[in-house]
């Protein structure tokens, strides 16, 4: 049973298996730094990326830390699309993971303790989304595997994806506003 514990006999609360919340902060920093070194080839952009990574993880509540997602996502423009490019799949997962970690670390103190079981739900959701996103990305790259500017039907495909997403988001916003 999650979180069921017993008394320890001292004044340190017993929460079962746990990890320091600093690990999540450092994990985010590590993922961000790794992605910067992996996908940003220009030294200037690499430095900017690392700086944003440090700022984003040191001060999670500061919005400029999220700019790193933008820099990393748009860095794909300078890479040739390829269905066999492992770095692309890492980038796809890494940007998403940074978003998940950034959302969590915004409210996590550095000196806290986190139940291991508490990290399971966000992790499971990340895996589920990636389990869909990675095959879709591979399929899309395989189907439209030309070069930059030579993808036939991309506009139609992208418009369809954005349209579906917009419908989902609009529904979510309506639900949220109705509850507010």
């Amino acid at each position, binding site marked *: 049973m999650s979180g069921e514990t017993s*008394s320890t006999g*001292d004044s340190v609360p017993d929460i079962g298996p746990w990890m320091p919340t600093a690990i999540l902060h450092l994990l985010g920093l590590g993922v961000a730094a790794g992605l910067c070194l992996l996908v940003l080839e220009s030294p200037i952009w690499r430095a900017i990326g690392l700086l944003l990574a440090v700022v984003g993880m040191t001060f999670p509540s500061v919005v400029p830390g999220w700019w790193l997602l933008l820099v990393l*996502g748009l860095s794909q423009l300078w890479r040739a699309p390829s269905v066999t490019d492992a770095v692309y799949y890492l980038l796809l997962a890494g940007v998403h993971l940074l*978003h998940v970690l950034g*959302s969590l670390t915004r409210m996590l103190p550095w000196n806290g303790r986190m139940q291991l079981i508490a990290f399971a739900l966000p992790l499971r*959701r990340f895996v589920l989304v990636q389990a869909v996103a990675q095959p879709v990305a591979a399929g899309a790259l395989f189907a439209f595997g030309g070069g*930059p500017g030579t*993808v036939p039907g991309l506009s139609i495909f992208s418009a369809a994806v954005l349209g579906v997403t917009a419908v989902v988001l609009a529904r*979510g916003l309506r*639900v949220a506003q109705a509850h507010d």
Partner: protein
Amino acid sequence: VTEHAAELVRREAAVDAIALDAIAVDAVPVDPDAIDATVRPTWRRSAAIEVAIVVALVIATVGMLTSRVDVVLIALPLLASAAISLDRKPSPAARRAVRVNVTRSLGDERTSAFDYAVEVDATPAAELVHLRLTLRGSRTHELILAPVGTVSGRVPVLYSGRLRVVAVDYRLVGVNGAWLSRPVRDVVERVVAPAIAPVASIPLPHRLTGLTGTHGSARPGDGGEFRDLHPYAPGDRLRRIDWKATARRSQGFGDLYVRRTDATSDATLILVIDSREDVGERVEHWSAGPSDADGLGSMDLAREAAASLAAAAIGVGDRVGLIDIAAHDGVVRAGSGKRHLDRLLRRIAACEPSGPPLNRRRAPIVPAGAIVYLISTFLDDEATSIAVLWRAAGHRVIAVDVLPAPRLDRSEGNTHLAHRIVMIERRRRIADVRSNGVEVFRWQEDAEQPSRAVVLRTLARVGRRRR
């Protein structure tokens, strides 16, 4: 907000009532009931959703403009996360519960503790619970918990009085950290009865006025120690005639001698607690109020002294009353017996720094012939002036000094100087009351004075000579 505040006030009042009722004679406040901290959370959206949408739309738009499907696809997981977060807003109708249970666990006489259990049940909407746990005598613990679970532990009981055992601040976190509830605070307090130190000899009043008891008084009567041989007088019982003494002493026919004994009597003790201030061992914190870092406080010593004297006196059949000179309702009339001792211990345990400085023109009224135990730190003139008034009224007054031994090892130079000045004033004050006939002794045992048992025995012997 107003309703919530009113609810908190009602809950705290209930906590106080429970805590006060939970004290037993043996310093065992047992309260198995939980403090219900069920609240209805108010949710707000964090910036994570907006940020994810903006970043994803920018990436997707650039990808579309450049006809790069791979770039567009990078935005997909972010949009999916935002959509899931929006779709799973926690329902405002759902009730979340964080319940704090605190029970007293007993070890041997010197160790006892509170066992606490924080039960979390924040399903289904909350994904995480951010709990800030502040324990008595310990640092604050920041905990990130699953929505269902229990956090347990133990808080050692080091001091007496009203203690804030556990303070819990928590907020619930929705999907992906996109939803946050407003922080909620819950505090659990318990009243801990003081330890009762053994008191073998207890000083008594100069004059015993009771009609029955265990102490020998100065007037003749039944039941006490041998007093003298006295010529028989009308009213003397025949069985008190001492025939041997009569045979030895009688001068003529009809002279009879009776054995007379001292009467036994009980004593009346009035315990006066000066609860206007609570100072700890750390001198630099004296003006800031007590804290866990201050170590033993003067009120801890005062409660222990009062409880010990009360238990010892009632144990030998004396009558004991209590006056808390800083509280308006701080008077317990003198009485005896087990139930009265329970009442006294409850009141003593509830004594806490509560009042502004006094400016009394008259001392509180105490019963005639009672001995007054004035328990104070004597850091100002109020207590000593009252002691002198009682002494002038003919009461035997014993001043019990409960100022804890100071710790100055981490203090600055000006603190040393201030402490020295305060101590000089205090010594002068104590010398003044001594010169007025008030007997003084320190409750806390240290190397500077004989043990407490020796001092009390000496004071008891002095009183016995005078009666």
